């Protein structure tokens, strides 16, 4: 019991502390690739602390939902991020939630975010909420299809068990996993509002999705929303890392040495993930909103293909 709570607390604090750093690394790497100096990788921390010190402004006709939403979105994203194994398979409460439940928690957070966007009754909030839900309607079935293909390979939807299976030597070469990897990466890009689906660095009215929902937020509310957004990115990078490159992840009740190497490996994976994301973002242009369904539709097809391949041939 105490060990469970301890591991849970370690995970929770770890994702909370690392999330802004990951966002910072992506931003800096993007700036460098564009031959700008860019801010320090610690800039997101400074931003959050600055927001926390500032006064919070709430629109006149905002309701309790607008005020409560940041806390809820933050809490749901935090719990979901805590449930994804980072440097050890022992996440404390692995039995409480499988991959579907984690996706469900993110859907809950999105539900709160979209409602908050509609609450002030401005047209930008509406545009963001409506587009976010449209993207989600395709991203969620795609995600489930990908989870299904993983479940077919590993025989379970529990994340630590999937990772443990991928790590084990029985695996061999699996094309279905490769397809699922590409699919997961595309979903991660879409769900985190990165280029080409959404541009996190813009306040250009016609293209924004996520930022449009946050437009009315300020001060501590905005800090929570930004932190939740950063944690979501960390969640997806950790998810891809633990499912597709689970090597070096420490087993439950491992030695201190194992934990240390696992922690360093995890840091390395996050760094590589951030650099790859930055590379991807600077080499591609933002899409029109109505081309986004086609982009995510590819992820859905990859999931279907991975599942089919696995069904047709047990070995692939």
């Amino acid at each position, binding site marked *: 019991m105490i060990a469970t709570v301890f591991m849970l607390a370690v995970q*929770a604090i770890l994702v909370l502390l690392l999330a802004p750093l990951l966002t910072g690394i992506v931003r800096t790497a993007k700036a460098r690739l564009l031959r700008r100096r860019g801010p320090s990788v610690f800039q997101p921390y400074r931003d959050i602390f600055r927001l*926390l010190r*500032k*006064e*919070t*402004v709430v*629109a006149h*006709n905002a*309701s*309790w*939902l607008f005020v409560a939403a940041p*806390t*809820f979105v*933050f*809490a*749901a994203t935090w*719990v979901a991020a805590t449930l994804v194994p980072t440097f050890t398979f022992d996440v404390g*409460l692995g039995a*409480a*939630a499988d991959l*579907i*439940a984690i996706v*469900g*928690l993110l*859907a*809950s957070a999105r*539900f709160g975010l979209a*409602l908050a966007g509609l*609450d*002030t*009754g*401005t*047209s930008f909030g*509406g545009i963001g*909420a*409506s587009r976010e839900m*449209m993207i*989600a*309607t*395709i*991203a*969620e*079935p795609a995600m*489930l*299809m990908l989870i299904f293909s993983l*479940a077919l390979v590993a025989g379970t939807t529990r994340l630590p*068990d999937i990772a443990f299976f991928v790590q084990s030597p029985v695996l061999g070469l699996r094309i279905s996993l490769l397809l699922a990897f590409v699919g997961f990466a595309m979903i991660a890009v879409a769900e985190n509002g990165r280029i080409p689906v959404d541009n996190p660095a813009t306040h250009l009215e016609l293209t924004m999705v996520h930022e449009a929902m946050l*437009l*009315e937020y300020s*001060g*501590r509310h905005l*800090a*929570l929303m930004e932190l939740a957004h950063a944690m979501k990115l960390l969640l997806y990078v950790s998810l891809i890392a633990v499912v597709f490159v689970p090597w070096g992840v420490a087993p439950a009740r491992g030695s201190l040495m194992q934990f240390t190497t696992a922690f360093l490996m995890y840091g390395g994976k996050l760094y590589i993930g951030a650099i790859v994301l930055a590379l991807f973002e600077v080499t591609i242009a933002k899409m029109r*909103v*109505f081309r986004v*369904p086609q982009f995510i539709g590819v992820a*859905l097809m990859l*999931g279907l293909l991975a*599942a089919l391949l696995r*069904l047709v041939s047990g070995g692939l």
Partner: protein
Amino acid sequence: MSVTGVLLCVAALLGISVAAAPNSRKPWANFATYGACALVCAAALSFAVAALIGSDTSTLILPLGLPWLGMHFRVDPLAAAFLAVVNFGGVAASVFALGYGRHESAPQRVLPFIPAFLAGMNLVVVADDAFAFLLSWEFMSLTSWALVVSHDRSAETLRAGLVYIVMASLGTLALLFAFGILAGPDGQYAFSSMRAHGLGADATMAVLFLALLGAGSKAGIFPLHAWLPLAHPAAPSQVSALMSGVMTKVAVYAFIRIVFDLLGPIDWRLGMVVIGVGTVTALYGVLYALMQHDLKRLLAYHTVENIGIIFVGLGLALAFRANGFVAAAALAATAALFHVFNHSAFKSLLFFGAGAVQNATGERDMDRLGGLIHAMPRTAMAFLIGAAAISALPPLNGFASEWLIFQAAFLSPAFPQWGLRLLAPASAAILALSAALAAACFVKAFGVTFLGRARSDAAKLACEADKISLAAMFGLAGACIFAGIVPGYFTNLLAPAAQFLTTARIPAQPLAAPWTSLLPVAASHNSYSGFVIAACLIVATALASLAMHLFANRATRRSAAWDCGYPDTSPLTQYTAGSFAQPIRRVFATMAFRARETVEMPVPGDAAPAQFRVRLWDPAWELLYAPVAAAVNFLADRINVFQFLTIRRYLGMVFFALVFLLTVLALWT
């Protein structure tokens, strides 16, 4: 024991109905009728739950009806599970109506029919022979039809009533044929003798399709659903809740009773048919719902979606059972039954919320509402919980049952048949799609109705619902949360019913420690614990609030909305139901409904307003109903000639008919 109790409750409900008819205009009639209904339904609920816990079967034969048959009644675990759902919904609707009914324009019109309707639904579930079943089924249909048309006299309501009565009669006809085939040549109308003798493959298939037609049209499967979004919203809200949340479940019961219990072994291909029908229903239901801007119609279309989800669960159970995988079949059946309960809870809640909104504003059109969260904060809270539950969001109950259905679909690699192996994951993906679309739809429904700024004076002047109505809503919201947090309690309770259907049960969930997880099948390691998720969410929320309280600047200022620097003062610039759904309409409805958007710009210099139109094409109506209606009209026109003949010709026709029949008889024997 329990069957006697339930029948006494039915008798009491019928008594209330008879007593209410002459007294319905008295000032106390509303209170007395709904109060008595709530008490009687609560009694029936306790009998049902007791029967479910004891998993006992009790039968009773009353000397009514056909003289050589009598009327058979039986409460077995399956019937008990559905009795529990029916009476749970009955209690909730009666309590809600205690407060809500007072504000209606003409409450006395529906008063006598509600207890009769409740009695009819209970009777369908306890009936144990075809005669009693069909009689109570028709009684239920007619009382609900009366509830729809007695409410008001608008042309729309009358049209809804007409479509409903035609579809209900068609459904009963299909069930009549189904029971006819089941009874065999000897006319064995008792369910016990139907169970005893098996049917051939062709007859089995015929009964399954007739059951899909008969029970499915009442439940609202695509494309037989067309009456449902017309009739359910036309009735007063407590009746809408009963029809959508409860009567559709009685139809699901009829399907389960015929297909799982009376039919005996079924080919896996028929399981595939049921999965396919459920999948299409779920997807089309939610897509229709997204296109609506009438709050109650939107909810009615969501009933179609959820019925689809239930049918997918049932189809999986049939397919697993046909292959002998009883543990997986039990999982799918439990998931479907759990979703039956969950849907009745959140759909009743949402209809109550819609009723409260309609009461406060006189509007059902979301595009004329908005900002109600300020005037009706409690109703908004309850509606929000229902909206999150129906959108399958953890830790609420909708997620728990959909999670179980996904787990059942994930067992599909075990199927030896290729068709099922491919169909089950595809249908799981479409269920995920419909869950995501449902979330979008309820962001729209809640956001446009309750959030933002008021779009009309009616919405501006709204006031909170009364305390009794709120109590009913919060009771159901509590049920949604409770069933989501400790789903193990409900799956344990439903296990006898699933066992009755599939001869197996899902692993008993340890109740002593409800935080331990929900396990779908013993062999897999998958688990989900709503309790732990909810606890984690509460802890995380508390920590975040505490941290904000301690470390953040607590100064808060109210100001005008920023809106990128150009806030528009007119509330008409907000997103409406139509504009919110526009991206989704472009992506999905262009194919599903042939959605076409046209913009008409006036020529320069012309002061006429520009117009934007969306045209949708309803495939069910255009491909199925319209041709049938046209054919009926055509025939009626032709037959109309016979109305104006002379007496000589009529007599001649009688003579020729007689000759014809005698010739047939002579040739036949």
